């Protein structure tokens, strides 16, 4: 069991700043997800923690030991890669034992560990096969097994499920979660898939352009995103953003077009705000109530349906609110077609307010 912490980490590829003064503390046993679009530096950060990339500046500690200059094998980490990275010329057993043989472990110990890992991951019947004779899901299981046999304190996952099809991905996601509950290791998991992040993480670090924008529990990230980028990145379909400005003596009224929305019940952040400043109100499509439910909401409006996207469990409706595009969710059984009028309503207390310039939460 080990903590991982990163202090003032900087990494430049030539003139390109990939990681900028990054700080991160991961307590023992936490499942941390690094979430971000491609190019955000999430995989780079993981590679730095693994010791596969030399950092430009800053320090990395694993279990309170400074490992900034240590070799990957001496850091007590196991890593799982997106492309599985199984050694093609070795059998599954050979793949699992490769690291242990390099560490010069006694034969009996190697056998014992392989047996245990194979039973945890249910790959016992595959031990004598070559990777080319395995399916994608089986390969990724073997790759996880390779980290497992090394008996390490920290697991690093680099988009492990991205190469799998949707169903396998869901299955293995659950399996990884179960594995974490069972082993209670510290795990750092890189992904661009918000569903994986939300379901697996104890905490999520949303990254963009080499910095961590927000580090918090999935719940907080979803409900109280720290800035507009995080708000837009998390949640599908994407949050609606309404451009407008603040007014009122306490700057607690949001004006957009001809509408005045009183932000009663909204928990303002510590950011300074002023009356008449421009602002953005973010409303999640799934937080919009429709028809009868809309009546009880503080903000109501009758809008015209422009486009309907049925998705089975629910239906996404595109319309216009305050002359701006606005999407909302309806029941999957709802029957609407373009041109229909629908009554919608939402509670500004559950919405998110951002500064137009800084894009920070107000």
């Amino acid at each position, binding site marked *: 069991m080990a903590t991982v912490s990163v202090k003032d980490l900087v990494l430049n590829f030539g003139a390109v700043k990939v990681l900028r003064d990054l700080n991160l503390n991961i307590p023992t046993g936490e499942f941390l997800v690094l979430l971000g679009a491609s190019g955000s530096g999430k995989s780079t950060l993981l*590679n730095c923690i*693994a*010791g*596969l990339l030399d950092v430009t500046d800053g320090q990395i500690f694993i279990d309170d030991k400074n490992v900034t200059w240590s070799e990957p*094998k001496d850091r007590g980490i196991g890593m799982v890669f997106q*492309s599985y990275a*199984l050694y*093609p010329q070795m059998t599954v057993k050979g793949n699992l034992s*490769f*690291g242990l043989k390099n560490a010069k472990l006694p034969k009996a110990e190697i056998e014992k560990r392989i047996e245990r890992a194979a039973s945890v991951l249910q790959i016992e019947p595959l031990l004598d096969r070559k990777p080319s004779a395995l399916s994608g899901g089986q390969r990724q299981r073997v790759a996880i097994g390779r980290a497992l046999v090394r008996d390490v304190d920290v697991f690093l996952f680099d988009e492990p499920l991205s190469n799998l099809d949707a169903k396998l991905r869901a299955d293995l996601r659950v399996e990884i979660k179960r594995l974490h509950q069972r082993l209670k290791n510290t795990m750092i998991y890189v992904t661009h898939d918000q569903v994986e992040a939300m379901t697996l993480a104890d905490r999520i670090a949303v990254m963009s352009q080499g910095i961590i924008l927000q580090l918090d529990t999935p719940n907080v990230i979803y409900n109280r995103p720290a800035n507009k980028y995080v708000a837009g990145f998390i949640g599908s379909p994407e949050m609606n953003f309404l451009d407008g400005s603040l007014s009122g003596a306490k700057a607690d009224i949001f004006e957009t077009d001809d509408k005045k929305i009183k932000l009663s019940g909204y928990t303002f952040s510590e950011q300074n705000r002023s009356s008449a400043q421009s602002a953005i109100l973010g409303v999640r499509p799934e937080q919009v109530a429709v028809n009868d439910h809309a009546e009880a909401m503080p903000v109501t409006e009758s809008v015209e349906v422009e486009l309907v996207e049925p998705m089975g469990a629910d239906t996404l409706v595109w319309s216009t609110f305050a002359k701006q595009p606005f999407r909302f969710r309806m029941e999957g059984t709802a029957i609407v077609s373009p041109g229909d009028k629908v009554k919608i309503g939402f509670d500004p207390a559950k919405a998110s307010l951002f500064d137009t310039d800084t894009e920070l939460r107000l």
Partner: protein
Amino acid sequence: MADTILNPVAEARGPRPKKAFSRANIFIYGTLLLVSVYYLLPLYVMIVTSFKGMPEIRLGNVFGPPLEPTFQPWVKAWAEACTGINCDGLSRGFSNSVKILIPSVTLSILIASVNGYALANWKFKGSETFFTILIIGAFIPYQTMLYPIVIMLREIKLMGSIWGLVLVHTVFGMPILTLLFRNYFTSIPDELFKAARVDGAGFWGIYFKIMLPMSLPIIVVAIILQVTGIWNDFLFGVIYTKPDTYPMTVQLNNIVNSVQGVKEYNVNMAATLLTGLVPLVIYFISGKLFVRGIAAGAVKG
């Protein structure tokens, strides 16, 4: 009315019928045939001539098959033909060539594969510059380096010996072979290399246990390139060795181009065929692997 007319388009079903003698086919196969004849005819002439006796050759029927087939020219080419004071035929050149070939091929491939591996996976400061310089080396005309190498070989006392030539071949094979191996190793997913590092394998561990077992196709390509290149080399052979250590190509030249006495065309043909046999055999054995390896190394670079 309309449905009584058989409409071939409306009836279309299953694979489209193909014409065996379409204009395109005739053109393609005609060209192929022509080119084959162009290349095979000289070979045919060589083979038939090598089995003829001198009186039959003097008749002048170049394309006719041998009327009295004889192995004598082959025997003479291999064991009796004279070059200078040595009259033991091509067999001496053959054994010299083998003695040059085996260490040159082995050494150059061993070194180049490590070079390529280091340049692909263990990038160091200036590794790209180093690689560029190495590649530029492949484009400098050999002629400019001939004399400096003579001096260098003289200084290390290898001038005229087989090992001097081995050294020259190994060095000159470096640019192209390093490029070949570097490109091949670059095409192997980076994550495999990272996984091996996490698993605690070092520079040589990854090279021998992960990379080398995966590089059979490219090794075959390198072997073919080197074997044919070194076997067919004439320039270095004639400059850096002496009559006792001449490789087969140089000796062949001396047999064919000797100005004294009668020109023995049959012996010359047999000698030439014997010399060309080794690269030919290599191609036949490994043709399939060769194509596969070239493609594997060329896709990514």
